[in-house]
């Protein structure tokens, strides 16, 4: 399986993401600079964390207008997986691939520590390797992870089981303790916590590995098996 890790000016979790899929999972992966990129030959797109364009205007807003995002929208429209983590999640929100927006953390602090999460939906192509309601530990590292959306959107998210990860002890004020949501079609996941920083015991947790294993497993089942 071939992953593209998109690199924007200001991305800083791109290497971690690359390391997770390339070295730990042993899959093919490229670091792809956002300009003049050609994403046609990739099976999955990973939008890493960081501070694309220095968080100018709003986190993720400038990256969301890039030509690269047009390609990612086309990729997503084909049902291929897209995972956005941290700033990647913010970009997906700004690009309209996921509903809602991010506000400053309730305590105004940039927070960087391990958080316990609940896998609220273990039936997605990103979480199928987890148990139902499994409690996992991923690091968070953000200043604007306070997820906000209106009441109607929350109802939609609940109804369609689009809430995939929730915080056990909400650190940032997120609506409904939301840590990660998926699109209605089930192939675009955005999450603030970092699964790519939790892929080895040495890093304090290997709980994030199953996110990437799920993507690979589901891709093998749906594409390779049918060939």
């Amino acid at each position, binding site marked *: 399986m071939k992953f593209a890790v998109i690199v924007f000016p200001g991305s800083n979790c791109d290497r971690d993401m690359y390391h997770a899929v390339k070295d730990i999972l042993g899959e093919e992966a490229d670091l792809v600079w956002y300009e003049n990129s050609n994403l046609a030959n990739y099976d999955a797109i990973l939008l890493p964390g960081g501070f694309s364009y220095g968080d100018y*205007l*709003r986190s993720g*807003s400038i990256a969301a*207008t890039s030509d690269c995002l047009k390609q990612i929208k086309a990729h997503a429209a084909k049902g291929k997986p897209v995972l956005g983590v941290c700033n990647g999640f913010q970009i997906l*929100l*700004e690009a309209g691939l996921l*509903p*809602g*927006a991010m*506000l*400053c*953390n*309730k*305590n*105004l602090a940039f927070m960087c520590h391990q958080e316990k999460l609940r896998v609220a939906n273990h039936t997605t192509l990103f979480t199928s390797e987890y148990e139902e309601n499994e409690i996992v530990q991923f690091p968070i590292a953000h200043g604007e992870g*306070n997820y*906000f*959306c*209106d009441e109607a959107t929350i109802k939609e998210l609940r109804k369609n089981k689009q809430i995939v990860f929730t915080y056990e002890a909400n650190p940032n*004020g997120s609506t409904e303790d939301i840590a990660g949501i998926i699109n209605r079609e089930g192939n675009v996941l955005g999450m603030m916590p970092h699964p790519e920083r939790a892929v080895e015991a040495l890093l304090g947790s290997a709980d994030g590995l199953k996110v990437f294993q799920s993507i690979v497993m589901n891709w093998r089942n749906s594409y390779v098996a049918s060939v």
Partner: protein
Amino acid sequence: MKKVIVFITLKQGVLDPQGKAVQTSLHSLGFQEVEEARIGKYIELYVEDQENVSERVQAMCEQLLANPVIEDYRFEIEEAVHS
């Protein structure tokens, strides 16, 4: 040339942690009368004269300058004074 001034504000009902912190600081400076503080953005654009400036700026606000999920915007258009 037109000068466009865009004001971006958080929608009513959206919590503003920054505004809250500023309010607390104002209180600690003795300005107890401040009942609420909301932080927004002020953007100046200088744009070529054209017929549909207003519509174009509205589109800019909706597509990039403001995030309609959490923000409202309004703008004023005036003649740019050349320096």
